[in-house]
């Protein structure tokens, strides 16, 4: 993935593979054959079978997955990329694991808990079509939203909506581990009915003395239009959470929610370096006022000009092209392409690229000058 000079032996092997199989990796030649024999077999990826699908709330379901034996396991709070075929279109999305590592050790299963995104192509398809018995591809687990190995001080959790999933994995792990440290949770959702794992959290709070769970609904159940007087998250909530003197606060939820929470934490005098965030999706792209930029997709002989550029991937798709893409959040490098000229900005880090020819990930790159790219 990253440039590293291959050894002579590796180069020889690549050359022989490309001669015999017309691909640098012999596994690619056999991949469909293996899949044809058993969908769980693969020379390239880890597969997982759906063992069960459960309803959590009206728009959220949990899928129980059994990965192949050689899958590497995970730490509570980590996430995986799941690749599945949505009406023939191979699609990759990132989901946190909501189950405890103990469950995986015991019966070899993990769970993901996914809310149906309004108009979401992939989550919508999953809710309607991903049934027991289906097979998907999963990546190894990754992510830093995890408890430190030697955790010995109280932890705080702030979650909104489906942001509860990585936190639930940690709570389940701690609960099975007899609550090694005090933990306090602030959990926000639209109505009482929208709390994912609501009853489990309440039961845990009753059973474990060192855990408190505060479930705060923004709207009344009977009338979802009626907003309760308080804003979803406010200074009192933060005050209550900080009383337990958490050494780490884990924050997971939509981007605007996290911004407000961090602001309140900072106002309450909490050091933001002690806050860990799990961020999915891209932050909104800041449009800089300026001249329109022209993007030339050279290999397709297509050009597009706009004064409101999105990511190059979105622009290419908007122009009717179909470049390969995976996670759409700068992680998997599937969409890596050669930029032959022009400058782009990384929408996550804000970093500006050089103006030289170089490989870029088009899913997280937005043009800041006229750009030519080899798509």
């Amino acid at each position, binding site marked *: 993935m990253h440039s590293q000079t291959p050894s002579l032996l590796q180069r020889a092997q690549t*050359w*022989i593979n*490309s*001669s*015999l199989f*017309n*691909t640098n990796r012999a596994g*690619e*030649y*056999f*991949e*469909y*054959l293996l*899949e*044809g024999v058993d969908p769980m077999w693969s020379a390239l990826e880890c597969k997982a079978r759906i063992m069960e699908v459960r309803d959590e709330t009206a728009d959220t379901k949990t899928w129980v997955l059994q990965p192949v034996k050689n899958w590497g396991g995970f730490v509570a709070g980590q996430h995986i990329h799941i690749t599945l*075929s949505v*009406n*023939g*279109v*191979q*699609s990759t999305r990132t989901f946190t694991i909501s189950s405890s590592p103990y469950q995986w050790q015991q019966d070899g299963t993990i769970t993901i808990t996914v809310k149906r995104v309004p108009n979401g192509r992939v989550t919508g398809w999953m809710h309607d079509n991903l049934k027991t018995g289906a097979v998907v591809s999963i990546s190894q687990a990754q992510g830093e939203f995890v408890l430190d190995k030697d955790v010995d001080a109280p932890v705080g959790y702030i979650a909104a909506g489906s942001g509860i999933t990585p936190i639930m994995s940690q709570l389940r792990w701690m609960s099975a581990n007899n609550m090694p440290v005090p933990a306090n949770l602030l959990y926000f959702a639209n109505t009482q009915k929208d709390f994912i794992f609501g009853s489990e959290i309440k039961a845990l709070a009753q059973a474990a003395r060192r855990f408190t769970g505060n479930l705060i609904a923004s709207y009344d159940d009977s009338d979802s239009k009626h907003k309760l007087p308080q804003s979803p998250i406010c200074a009192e909530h933060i005050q209550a959470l900080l009383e337990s003197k958490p050494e780490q606060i884990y924050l997971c939820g939509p981007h605007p929610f996290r911004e407000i929470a961090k602001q309140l934490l900072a106002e309450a005098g909490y050091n933001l370096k002690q806050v860990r965030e799990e961020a999915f999706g891209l932050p909104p792209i800041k449009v800089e006022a300026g001249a329109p930029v022209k993007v030339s997709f050279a290999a397709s*002989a297509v050009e597009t000009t706009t004064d409101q550029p999105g990511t190059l991937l979105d622009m290419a798709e908007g122009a009717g092209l*179909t*470049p*390969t*893409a995976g996670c759409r959040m700068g992680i998997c490098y*599937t969409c890596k392409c050669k930029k032959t000229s022009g400058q782009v900005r990384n929408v996550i880090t804000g970093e500006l690229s050089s103006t030289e020819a170089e490989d870029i990930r088009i899913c997280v790159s937005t043009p800041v000058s006229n750009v030519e790219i080899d798509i």
Partner: protein
Amino acid sequence: MTTATQPNVEQLTEEKVQFGGLNGRRRLTKEQYEGLQQEFDALRDEIRADLGQADVDYMKNIIRIQRYLEVAGRTLIHFSFTPVPFMLGVAALSVSKIMDNMEIGHNVMHGQFDWANDPKMHSKNFEWDTACDAGSWKRTHNFEHHTFTNIIGKDRDYGYAVLRLSDETPWTPMRSFQTVYFALLSIFFQWGVALHELESERLWDRSFDLEEKKPYLKGLFRKGAKQVFKDYIFFPALAGPFFWKVMLGNAMANLGRNLWASAIIFCGHFTEQAQAFSEEECENETKGEWYYRQLLGSSNLSGSKLLHVMSGHLSYQIEHHLFPDIPAHRYEEMGPKVEEICAKYGLQYNTGPFWHQYGTVLKRVWKYSFPTGSQKRS
């Protein structure tokens, strides 16, 4: 359609379309070209919107069959000690190469499955079992040939620079032997395709620029060496004392593929009724006129499902040229609709059985090896 776009259908006489002469071609009005474009665009959008899991599954299955055949073919060639299993092995390997080149490689490299976002069937990554490397093919075929289809002087696939196929190409004495070139091109077709981008014909008018061709030549040698290594060194060497047997088997499999692929491809544009175009008449061409040229410059083969699959659905050459990025196995259902649109505009939908079409190709190659048109001596 409104009555305004209804063409005044007149009978196409045999003479008018004979051997694709530039004159006497049936022309449409501006409105008709627009109507033609709308109808073809609508047909394309309809199929495009319907693409899904079944199309991906189809291609995966084809790839599986091809790989099973290749493994079976190489195994049989390796272990056979009598002619029958040996020939079965040759046949299996040859069919595997044909499927890899035509139903899989050609179609995948057109980007017909790019929408599926599967790196293993994406045009960016796919490499095939033939001497021509994928990059060179995409430049010469996808771009040159599909953009400038049958424009004499711009579409270098038209006659592959060695065949004279219409009056517009001047006759020279070298053309007298073009039936021999045709036979050689058919036998060594994979190398002919690989050498296509070299534009060796430019040696004659001294416009050939070696420096400019260097990146291409590098790719050519790299890919050619791999193919030679695979079929003529690696697998024969695996057989030890039976080196020559395996080499012969592989050469026969390649020959089978070459003859079949060239025959199919020649039938696509060199048949009696496939028309040629001049650069002037294609200047400032609209999309409707582009469709018109693709339509009249291509010819189909009628036949069984097996013929269609084994030709990579190039038996639907017309549909392929109208909709090059629609998965080819969908051309079969598009065919009758295209034919209907053609009938409506009084345009020829050129089709016929394989042997008939191939016969007209041979006839055309033979005919134009002699002076014709203005060069004909009276």
